[in-house]
């Protein structure tokens, strides 16, 4: 049976994907909010200074550094972990599509999705 977008099978996959996206965003937003509260309680009185670009310290640039900062309950580290979860949400969506196309034995789109996934993973881990 030819699979066209909008067929019942695709719709089921799309609904599951929608759920995945919503859960990812809600989780990420809650972590960001938690980190924001910790950060502002500790540093809220300090002066805001974003006029001059300095770049972030190295521990907020790598996944390992962010995890370390977040689990030692640094506000900025927790927020950054939330942002990392947010970035990971579309990546999870693509990984999920890969499984769906594999199960439908759709070789063209399995390949297409693999390419997209490797670009995303390169961006997160490769650079």
């Amino acid at each position, binding site marked *: 049976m030819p699979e066209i977008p909008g067929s019942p099978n695709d719709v089921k996959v799309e609904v599951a994907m929608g759920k995945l996206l919503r859960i990812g965003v809600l989780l990420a937003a809650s972590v960001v909010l938690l980190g924001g509260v910790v950060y502002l309680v500790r540093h809220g009185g300090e002066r805001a200074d974003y006029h001059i670009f300095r770049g972030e310290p190295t521990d907020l640039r*790598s996944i390992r550094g962010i995890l370390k900062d977040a689990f030692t309950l640094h506000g900025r580290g927790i927020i950054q972990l939330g942002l990392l979860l947010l970035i*990971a949400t579309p990546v999870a969506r693509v990984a999920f599509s890969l499984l769906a196309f594999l199960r439908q034995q759709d070789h063209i789109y399995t390949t297409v999705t693999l390419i*997209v996934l490797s670009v995303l993973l390169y961006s997160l881990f490769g650079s």
Partner: protein
Amino acid sequence: MNLIEFSLVLGAGSFAAGFLGALTGLGGGVVIVPLLTIGLGVDIRYAIGASLVSVIATSSGAASAYVREGYSNIRVGMFLEIATSTGALFGAFLASVISPQVIAVIFGMVLLDSAYHSFRQPVDQPCKENGHQDRLATFLKMHGSYPTRNGEQRYCVRGVPWGFSIMFGAGTLSGLLGIGSGALKVIAMDRAMHLPYKVSSTTSNFMIGVTAAASAGIYLTRGYLDPGLAMPVVLGVLAGSFLGAKFLVSARTGLLRMIFGGVVALLAVEMILNGLKRTF
């Protein structure tokens, strides 16, 4: 301003941006960077980083509502994501070699373009049932259908290479400027590939998150993503767009689109002037 005041101001501004962006369909991302740079004097690189993550949040949040209605075309979206995600990597690379002044000017021009698009009405091209079908689009199984008042409406896709090229450009702008480039994505799909407007706009929204994630990883590892700045922006835009989407059904969006389009145009001119005066 201390950090609490700064976060509150920024959160409120982002909330308004997200709310209007969702109501008008222009997206909140386009006004976040001007709000941060012109309004609060933030360095444009930080501003772009914060805008990029807010774009992921709204795209992913809204996509969950759209996909249920069966408009978006997952295959078209996934195929074009090859173009947008590699474009986004390229854009993020460009952002590190182009000066902030030039980025500000490009940003302003893209902003003018999206303001212009808020004034024009989309036109759908119907699918000729017996007409010649595009071979590449057929091979890629892109043709589809979407629900209308008169039942399922079929549509045929064509112009895949054109759409793919425009999408690479959309991805590059997204990675360079921290915006969703939704307007350009919709052009690629409804002009070049003849997808119905409803399908192209929801599929575009679906793709924006993946595109933005591709460059956000680079921004993070390069140190352009500041947690203190991104926190109020992400939470504000997310809450605003969520509320905006709730109001969408009842609001008269025609006039609102015109007003918001006008505001965006003013911001665009301001960005270009500031870029030319080298105040970034």
